Each structure stands twice: as structure tokens, then as C-alpha cells.
């Protein structure tokens, strides 16, 4: 797994933990005596859908899509780092009360990823090597 995928998947897991904690509080709001927690449902959804699921998908796709030519066949490193930073700052902005800025950053991140990753969507080749523990051997 390349370094950027490792950090992206770890960030996704952290968003999952945070979103689950918030979701648990929202679900238990009646027993906890805090009905106002229902106001955080959209924050919970943003963290889950973009912070967790979308980020996990991008991180795994960067790792596992067929590779092209070049040093590691995954293209230049900096665009994908910018994409991951934009996505995370976007989620933070949305839940922090700046939805327009956040959503623009999220959209830019996805478009950036699509431009960077599109050439790797092809019939032949593996992204993960299947060797040296990069991918558990499939049986």
C-alpha cells in the first residue's frame, strides 16, 4: 500500500470513529435527555459519507487501480496529496459551519482525483502487487 493511501485510509478510519461516536450520541439522545443532539444529524452524515466512505474509496482506489508507467506507476505524488488534504479540509469546513467553502473543496478533490486516476482505469495490470504483504494472497 503506498504511503498516501495508508494515510488516506487511516484518516478515513478516524472519521469513522468520530462519526460513529456522534451517531451513537444522536441515537441515544432520548435516554441521555438531550433531544437537541438531533441537530447534528447532517454533521454525522457528512462525516460518514465523505470523511469515511468517499475517502476510503479514494485511498483504496489509488492503491489498487491498475498501474501505468513511471516510478511506481501511480503518477506524480503531489496531486493526490493535495486531493486528500482538500477533501479533509472540505469536511472540516462543512461541519465547522462553512458549507459552501467545504463543498467546493470536496468537489475539487473529487474532480482532481478523477483527472489523476482516470488514465489508470484500464483493462490490464494490477495496482497492488500481491507480493511482500502488499495484498493478502487471494484464494
Amino acid at each position, binding site marked *: *500500500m*503506498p*504511503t498516501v493511501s*495508508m494515510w488516506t*485510509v*487511516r484518516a478515513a*478510519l478516524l472519521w*469513522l*470513529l468520530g462519526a*460513529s*461516536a456522534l*451517531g*451513537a*450520541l444522536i*441515537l*441515544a439522545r*432520548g*435516554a*441521555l435527555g438531550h433531544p437537541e443532539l438531533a441537530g447534528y*444529524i447532517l454533521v454525522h452524515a457528512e462525516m*460518514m459519507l465523505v470523511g469515511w*466512505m468517499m475517502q*476510503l474509496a479514494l485511498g483504496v482506489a489509488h492503491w489498487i487501480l491498475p498501474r501505468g508507467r513511471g516510478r511506481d506507476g501511480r503518477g506524480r505524488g503531489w496531486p493526490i496529496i493535495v486531493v486528500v488534504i482538500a477533501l479533509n479540509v472540505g469536511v472540516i469546513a462543512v461541519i465547522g459551519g462553512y458549507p459552501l467553502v467545504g463543498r467546493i473543496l470536496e468537489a475539487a478533490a473529487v474532480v482532481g482525483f478523477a483527472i489523476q486516476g482516470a488514465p489508470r482505469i484500464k483493462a490490464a495490470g494490477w495496482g497492488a*502487487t500481491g507480493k*511482500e*504483504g*502488499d*495484498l*493478502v494472497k*487471494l*484464494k
Partner: protein
Amino acid sequence: MPTVTRWVLRTALIWAAIATATGVMLVWPGAPAFPYPTYLHLFTVGWLSNLIFGVAHWMFPRASAAKPRGDERMAWAGWGLLNLGLFIRIVGEAIRPADMDRCLLISAAIQFLAVVCWVAHLWPRVKER
């Protein structure tokens, strides 16, 4: 495909069938009302989360040569707790027993614990080659 993954994916498929059947029920004329948030969580927790965890357990980089997929007891715990928590939520929100709030509190705690189990299980396998 490891045993844990097979069970997690089978469970995901069952939830997917329940979720889509619930979707039919939501628009069926004269059918009893069903809470929309519960319907959404049948998809996102029952189907998507189980699917993601099951495939991640199968395909993520190996933890070590001796235990390629780490301590599988954590994965089993995550699977059991997640699905038990979701089931209790459905009972709490759809059937609405007298102690619904207590049901949802228990469900919330169990589902959060399930996520902690899965994250703890997968985290050491998210690594460079």
C-alpha cells in the same frame, strides 16, 4: 476468502435484501409506517459497512507472516456487535417498545463498540509494503 469475510458478506447481503424490501414497504399502499432513518441505516450499516469491513479484512495488507489477518477475534466481535446493534435499533425505532429510549441507548453503545473493534482490527494492517 477467509471465513470471517464469508459470514460478514453473507450478512451484508441479507441486510441488503431486508433494506430493499423495506424500501418497497415504504411506498406500498396501506403498508404500516416505517421510520426513514432506520431504512437508511439498513443500507449504510447493514449493507455498506458490513461489505466494507468484510472486504477490508480479506484484502488489506497482511499484519504479519504468522497471522496474516491479525487477531480474527476482533473481527468476529465487530461483526457480531454491529449486527446485534442494528437489530436492536430496528426493534427500538420500528416496533417502539415502552422502553424505546433504553433500547436505542443499548444499540448506540453496541454499534459504537463494534466500530471500535473493526478499527482496532484493521488499523495495524493499514501500512506500507
